[in-house]
């Protein structure tokens, strides 16, 4: 029980949740627009690599961050082109992006940095100590000191929520994911709307990748996302395709991982068993033993405007 009272547990749950939460937010964008985004994993990985590469090149973590956004968006354009305009199977195209991203980042990593790994003087994003917030008892140690992206996340989350539910763009996103033919009949350029929703998803997933490489650490290693993009996809479902819901789901997964770290020294359980927790939670979430929801009606179906 002492473990649960340790602010470190909760603080690191948040830290571990944010990369997943970013990717999950991207997942919400694209699935609301009807594109199942199993490519999140690859976009995170590319974002993580781009962040380190540009941060070390320009000696600026912020430039790295912008590079991650752009790299995620560019990768997403490839994915969106295939899924939206060529009507590729979303899962297969997504898997292609994931495999390609793993190969490409590995290739670039080995070509540019080789055995030595990414430069040790790569800057990372600052840790912000938030005045006032850090002084609140109990919550202060949990919320008061985090890398910048944690706080930026909440900004992005708020904006996303507003866009999705309060603006014309958001209405169109939701419409094309539900019943694209009706949106088409109402004069919405369905394919364009889907395309940009997926690109936005990629940009946000790129941020998630950047958080892994220059938010929490200051280095990249091949395959460092270890399935977080897939877990993010589960968070989208578990979070009922809503921005806040997906964040809370990501938080749950972050908590499961954090708990496994915290218990490592203390408990008699193998760390490997504890590491399974987020994956088990994901399956439970999907089978509806922990809440159950319906997907956007046309999620995963390529739209052919001519039929």
């Amino acid at each position, binding site marked *: 029980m002492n473990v649960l009272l340790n602010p470190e547990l909760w603080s690191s749950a948040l830290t571990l949740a944010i990369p997943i939460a970013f990717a999950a937010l991207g997942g919400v964008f694209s699935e609301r627009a009807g594109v199942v985004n*199993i490519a999140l994993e690859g976009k995170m990985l590319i974002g993580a690599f781009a962040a380190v590469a540009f941060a070390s090149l320009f000696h600026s973590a912020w430039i790295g961050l912008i590079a991650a956004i752009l790299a995620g968006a560019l990768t997403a354009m*490839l994915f969106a*082109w*295939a899924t939206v*305009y*060529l*009507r*590729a*199977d979303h*899962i*297969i*195209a997504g*898997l*292609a*992006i*994931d*495999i*390609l*991203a*793993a*190969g*490409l980042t*590995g*290739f670039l*990593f*080995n*070509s540019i940095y080789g055995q030595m790994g990414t430069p040790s003087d790569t800057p990372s994003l600052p840790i912000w100590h938030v005045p006032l917030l850090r002084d609140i008892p109990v919550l202060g140690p949990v919320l008061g000191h985090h890398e910048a992206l944690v706080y930026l996340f909440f900004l992005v989350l708020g904006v996303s929520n507003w866009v999705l539910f309060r603006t014309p763009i958001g209405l169109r996103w939701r419409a094309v994911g539900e019943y694209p033919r009706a949106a088409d009949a109402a004069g919405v350029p369905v394919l364009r709307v889907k395309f940009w929703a997926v690109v936005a998803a990629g940009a946000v997933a790129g941020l998630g990748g950047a958080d892994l490489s220059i938010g929490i650490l200051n280095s990249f290693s*091949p395959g460092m996302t270890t*399935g977080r993009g*897939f877990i993010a*996809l*589960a968070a989208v*479902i578990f979070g009922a395709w809503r921005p806040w819901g997906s964040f809370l789901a990501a938080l749950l997964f972050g908590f499961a991982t954090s708990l496994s770290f915290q218990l490592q020294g203390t408990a008699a359980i*193998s760390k*490997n*068993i504890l*590491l*399974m927790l987020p*994956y*088990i939670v*994901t*399956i439970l979430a*999907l*089978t*509806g033993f922990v809440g159950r929801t319906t997907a956007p009606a046309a999620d995963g179906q390529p739209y052919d*405007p*001519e*039929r």
Partner: protein
Amino acid sequence: MSARTIWPGIAIVIAFVVGGILTFAFGNDPITAYRALLSGSFGDVYSIASTLVVTLPLAITGIAVAFSFRSGLFNISAGGQYWLGGIAAAWVGYAVKLPAVLHIPLAMLAAVAAGALWGAVIPGLAKAYRGAHEVITTLMMTYIATDFGHYLLEGGPMQAPGYTPQSPPMQPSAIIATLVPGTQLTWAILLVPVIAVLAWFVLQRTSLGFSLRLAGYNLRAARYAGVNPVAAVLTALAISGGLAGFAGSIQVLGVDRRLFDGFDPSYGYTAIVVALLARNGPFGVLLAAILFGALDTGASQMQIVANVPFNLAGVIQGIIIFFIAAEGLLRYFRRRRSAPAAEPRAAAAE
């Protein structure tokens, strides 16, 4: 020959061209690199054998994935079932004492059972009764399988005495005999075409296969045809998982001869590329598995000789599967050529 038939070939060509450009961009000579790739995979009898060593599990997992595709399911993580098969085979292989004629089949059987259960029980029941999409459940099951394997080997019940995370070695009676001396290629390679034919036969010529295909095409129509959808999902995932588990046993009993921490589940993903490239045809799977076996084997040679990172193989794989997915390109070009004629939009609505 239609453009669609040769599209996989075009995808391969595009992938190798892009790979070549990438190699060139980083200051290496693509010709040298690809020559090293070729000689590393087919240059002599040893490299051919090494290629086939990788082809073996790839082909079987590829058939496993193709089987699930044909049944309308997306077993995205044959890798997890492969791990479980490896675990089961390893345990039977070192812990049980039997004559070879029984020992190897028993170990394989255990692997098939483990893979089948891992593939079918949780993802299958979750899909059949709770509608959970098998893509994510099987993905999660892969991570769980890997963690479970690490648990067994890192201070767990299967760790051999000492500090290395590995199981005790297989007993000699459980080791599959080598086909080409001095290499890791075993007699098991001869099983691959047999399994391919068998899988094809089951799907095309038996009523079980027909019912699985019906469920794969259209679950509503399958129910109307009297197919029990729950049974169909469970059976298809069990067969697919069983095959992947079988591949794991061949790797442990023939190549690794013990279970290592680094037992590689990534075959599961390559298997998908193999199945898709082959359009789920069993014989295409064999060819595609040889291609990726060669790519994998030759890549290390390429890294040593031409200084090109072996990850290029992953890039090429990714591009191939991307273009397979983007088959819509064909339609796009075709329509561009005959743009004024085709306007089928409302013809069907009449």
